[in-house]
């Protein structure tokens, strides 16, 4: 039989308390997405109506599609550019490297509102028509930084002799990259990409400033909807988003498992 003591019980309570603090609001949101009542206060019975209503809401569906387009394309571009930047920083020494390295981190630390306003000002300055493309470009700018940081950390742990050994065994520079460097940094590249997608999916501020006609993303659509009160429809779309995000995380964990054997050896 398990034995309990005061400290143990307090610890358990504390743990549950923390979880409740984080997840209770989300749980409430999920529950009310199945509520028949329009007002999020009283439970009056189970329904899937709000989910069905989502599908027929063309504005909302358009915004979901926009978010997916922005997320996928900005992630793809940022992953390639960020990885290339990390490789260049890892491999070469050049004038001004330290400054370039520091500048690449900037999008992570500067306030979002500053980023948003500066991008908008810049677009106006170069007379770029605001739309979906302007949002994608904006998302690429900050996503590069996140991919860069993660891939760079991965590369920092890589034994330089691995690439030398490959070249020594007859691998051309491209073969070295394809068969040694890329497999080694792959987990970093993938987690960078997943992080980039999540951040892009989540972004309201920068999209709000840089989107034009036809560029409304999901967070912007939700924001405009709650001006008329929080409807169960919003609860429903939020629930789907949560499930989608959890799926991504599970995928990331699975991928990490596949690459688990990739560890540094030797000293």
């Amino acid at each position, binding site marked *: 039989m398990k034995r309990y003591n005061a400290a143990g019980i307090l610890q358990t309570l504390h743990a549950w308390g923390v979880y409740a603090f984080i997840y209770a609001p989300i749980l409430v949101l999920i529950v009310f997405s199945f509520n028949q009542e329009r007002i999020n206060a009283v439970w009056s019975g189970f329904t899937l109506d709000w989910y069905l209503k989502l599908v027929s809401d063309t504005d909302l569906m358009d915004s979901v599609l926009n978010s997916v387009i922005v997320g996928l394309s900005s992630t793809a571009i940022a992953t390639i550019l960020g990885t290339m930047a990390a490789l260049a920083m890892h491999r070469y020494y050049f004038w001004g490297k330290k400054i370039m390295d520091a500048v690449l981190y900037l999008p992570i630390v500067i306030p979002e509102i500053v980023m948003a306003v500066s991008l908008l000002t810049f677009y106006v300055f170069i007379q770029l028509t605001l739309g979906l493309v302007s949002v994608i470009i904006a998302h690429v700018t900050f996503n590069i930084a996140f991919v860069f940081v993660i891939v760079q950390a991965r590369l920092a742990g890589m*034994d330089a*002799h*691995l690439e*030398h*050994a*490959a*070249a*020594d*065994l*007859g*691998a*051309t*520079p491209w*073969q070295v990259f394809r*068969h*040694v460097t890329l*497999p*080694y940094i792959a987990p970093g590249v993938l987690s960078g990409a997943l992080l980039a997608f999540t951040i892009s999916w989540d972004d309201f501020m920068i999209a709000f400033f840089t989107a034009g006609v036809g560029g409304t993303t999901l967070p912007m659509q939700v924001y405009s909807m709650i001006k008329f009160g929080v409807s169960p429809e919003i609860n429903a779309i939020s629930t789907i988003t949560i499930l989608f995000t959890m799926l991504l995380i599970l995928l990331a964990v699975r991928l990490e498992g596949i*690459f688990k*054997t*990739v*560890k*540094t*050896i*030797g*000293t």
Partner: protein
Amino acid sequence: MKSLLRLDAISTSYGNTRVLNDIDIDVKEGEFFFLLGPSGCGKTTLLRILSGLMHPDEGTVWLGGKDITRLPAHQRDINTVFQNYALFPHLNVYDNVAFGLRMKKRSEPEIRSKVEEALRLVSLPDFGKRMPTQMSGGQMQRVALARAIVNEPAVLLLDEPLGALDVKLRKQMQFELKQLQRKLGTTFICVTHDQDEAMTLGDRIAVMNHGRFEQIADAHTLYNQPASHFVCDFLGDCNFLQAVVNGRVDDKLSLTAEGNPISASAPQTTPSGACIIGVRPEKISLDGSRENRVEASVEQVVFTGSHYTVIAKTSRGTSLSCRMFNDRPSALPETGQAITLSWHHTDTIVLPPNLSQSQ
């Protein structure tokens, strides 16, 4: 034996520091050649130049009569066993060993038979499916060897190959390495700071110091007839005394060291003036029976298992050590006892005066 790899006046610098200074070597086919020196002597830089990971500022590298100085690493018929093994962590043992052949686009059946043969040679026949992380240091060392020899290179480079292994395993691997080299007949060039390893395995040893060669010779010559104070000091232990050359008498050189007449075998060219003489501790006898004699008093007797080391001081305060086998412990002198150290003239090593270091 035929000359295989030749270095011609190789020099290279890192910034303002000259790390290699006018290096010449001629390595013969099938030779087990050592580059021996303390850390920072430039031996690893030289290895990188041979492997093609680095190009020298000046000079030429010849392999089998072809100038390969500027040829990149992946186009050279040379493979390396890296110090930390550098096994690919995402590939199993089989794929690690197959790597070089796959890069050269060989057929899978050919790869299979060669990889299996290589793994057999390093006594790891059933390890193909293991991941490098599941292996011990000695096993990783063997995989690294197999990965290099499977390509049948003209020259195999080894960078401190046994440095990361413990003493017992190192002795065993030394033996296996020598066996493997004999069996394959491949030219091995090995970098090490371990003089014991170089003397045990090397057909010839190039002793390096400050980016240049002090002497290139076999172990016997290096130990018995070192060309410089550095070589004499780096290989094994040695006693040094300041001396002055008096002249040549027949086939003997007459010297004076600390007031004692000393004789040595005369070298081909007779030196003059100040020089240094060296005597190996095991060449000194305590019974005063040999022709070169120095009076001293016993400072300390140290027991090291198979040997006793007697440390004695001359009247001028120079410490001399002599080594005796642990077979007659009753003949040991006592601390403070006056003794006569003596040695044969053939055991006197005459060295040029050391200008860089006050002795």
